[in-house]
């Protein structure tokens, strides 16, 4: 029997399960305890698991992310919630210079079994400093794995394998998804998903739309509109941004012979650019048209709604980009 859950509830359930199953797991971050989580992901956890395991931190992103790395090295399995990707810039040194490099620098002596979760993305009129989509930056770094759950199934199922991973995993949760609802099976043992592969979310034959995170629903909406106009779009959800599932990207593009990459990051130096490069490297001769992309415009994200909407990828822009390939 299936049940309906929101993305928020799915993530909360995944964390609850991890905390209940493994005494080494604990949650730390700003306002995860008494406040119940900035986005209510950990509501009620403090009462149930206590302040040692549901650990409110000061506004010290560098300090508490570094402390989580140390705790992981010391035998714990921390889930560290950095409220948003915007604030993760304050912790970037610890994530990049310590967590990602530690195993290599130590010649394989130490691993860092750390999970960092953070909200990403724009679309809620939060203006320039609260609207970043920087998962592409993180995906640049060897030594970490980068996940972008875009469905209820992934919100529920990615955390357990991330915690089981011996190396640092960074999970990006798009803020526009938290109230999205979907179906999940009741049986608990079915809920873990793989954190290795991309997944086809809509099967099509004429164009591959490759995307992730908050842009998945926009890509699916665009695919719906295109279907009405006789263009069959396949939608690939990358899910795992590092390491990229190059084989899945190549397979979809080889099949459809046209591709549009949709990425909420800015175009220059984007993850979209990396996906396009892999298409060139692997399936260039299968293409019937140059690969196109829809990214955020090269401007800080504005506050006013009409401008914010204009700055971000939208279904209409995706439709237009796809049609451009058939012109």
């Amino acid at each position, binding site marked *: 029997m299936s049940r309906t859950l929101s993305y928020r509830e799915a993530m909360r359930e995944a964390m609850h399960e991890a905390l209940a199953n493994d005494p080494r797991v*604990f949650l730390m971050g700003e306002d995860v305890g008494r406040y119940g989580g900035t986005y209510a992901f950990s509501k009620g956890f403090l009462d149930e698991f206590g302040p*040692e395991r549901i*650990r409110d*931190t*000061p506004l*010290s992103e*560098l*300090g*508490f*992310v*570094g*402390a*989580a*790395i*140390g*705790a*992981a*090295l*010391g*035998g*714990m399995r*921390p889930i560290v919630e950095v409220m948003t990707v915007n604030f993760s810039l304050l912790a970037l*040194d*610890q994530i990049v*210079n*310590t967590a990602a490099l*530690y*195993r*290599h*620098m*130590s*010649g*394989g*002596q*130490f*691993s*860092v*079994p750390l999970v960092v979760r953070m909200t990403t993305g724009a679309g809620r009129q939060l203006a320039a400093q609260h609207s970043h989509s920087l998962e592409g930056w993180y995906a640049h770094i*060897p*030594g970490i*794995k980068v996940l972008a759950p875009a469905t209820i199934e992934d919100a529920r199922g990615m955390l357990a394998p991330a915690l089981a991973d*011996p*190396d640092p995993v960074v999970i990006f949760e798009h803020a526009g998804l938290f109230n999205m609802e979907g179906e999940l099976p009741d049986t608990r043992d079915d809920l873990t998903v793989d954190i290795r592969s991309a997944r086809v979310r809509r099967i099509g034959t004429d164009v591959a739309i490759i995307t992730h995170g908050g842009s998945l629903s926009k890509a699916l909406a665009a695919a719906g509109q295109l279907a009405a106009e006789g263009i069959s779009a396949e939608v690939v959800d990358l899910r795992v941004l590092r390491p990229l599932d190059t084989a899945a990207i190549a397979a979809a593009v080889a099949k459809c012979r046209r591709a549009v990459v949709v990425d909420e990051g800015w175009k220059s130096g984007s993850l979209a650019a990396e996906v396009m490069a892999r298409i060139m490297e692997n399936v260039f001769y299968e293409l019937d048209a140059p690969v196109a992309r829809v990214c955020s415009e090269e401007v800080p994200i504005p506050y006013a709604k009409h401008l914010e909407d204009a700055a971000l990828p939208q279904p209409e822009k995706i439709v237009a980009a796809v049609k451009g390939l058939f012109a």
Partner: protein
Amino acid sequence: MNIDHHAPPPPAGPVPWQSDFAVGLLADMVRIRRMEEKSAELYGAGKIRGFLHLYIGEEAVAVGALHALSVEDNIVATYREHAHALVRGMAMSTIMAEMYGRREGCAHGRGGSMHLFDKATRLFGGNAIVGGGLPLAVGLALAAKMQNENRIAACFFGDGAVAEGAFHESLNLAALWKLPVLFCCENNLYGMGTALERSESQTDLCVKAASYNMPALRADGMDIVDVHEITRQAVQRVRESRSPVFVEYQTYRFRAHSMFDAELYRPKAEVEEWKTRGPIHTFSARLKAEGKLTEEQFLALDAAANAEVADAVAFAEAGTWEPVEDLLKDVHTPEGVAP
């Protein structure tokens, strides 16, 4: 505020230790000195490359402090950490092989001089980002606390790190959460070429630490007796209170910051004055005066140190290179290997 760049008065008073223990600590300082002198020579010969930060002059700090800690404790160090690795128990040959970039080094040549790690002796690096190790030590102490372990975390860092946000965030977290961390500040008066008073509005580092509501002690880092006794007190306080303590070791580096440093920022007379307080010769003179060390014993331990260095160099010279086919190793943990 200007601070006194003069060396402290020479250490005085009786050495409160049995001869064996005292001579053992002296021997460790000599081992470090000989290893470092050889490293500088090998750098000149092109055998060691990259950055090389020497600890010469500061030996009393690592030796005196680390001998006050237990083998179960966790150690976090900086990029000037050859001494800490050696005193902690890493073989000199392993250190030397790592600096040569050899497969037989502690990180198979992946890390070099600045990244000495040793799981066996609980040495968590070797961190080349100033201040980068402090949050790590806080987390190691948090893990110990959450798992009801008795171990503490000792974190070494320089005066330069005190200007980093990581210093302030870490001291606050450790005090706020009552974590067993020993913060060991090796104040050698310069963050690379910038004197402390040119980077700090408050140059009394104990005042800074104390503002985070933790005990802050000061030790003469040129006097191994003071270093060890103060650290012993500090370690005891950390263990008993399960809360952090800060220790400032006032010391001085006799050599350049790294091998690229022309030392334009400090007067030669200042360096010479501090050298008269060198931790090895002042300590050995005291021991001799007290009849706890003979010249023959000193020559013997020095010869042993030189022999150990020669063996380490021979080991590194005979070492192998990690095959390029293994280049991508150790980015991630292999399947089935527990972290």
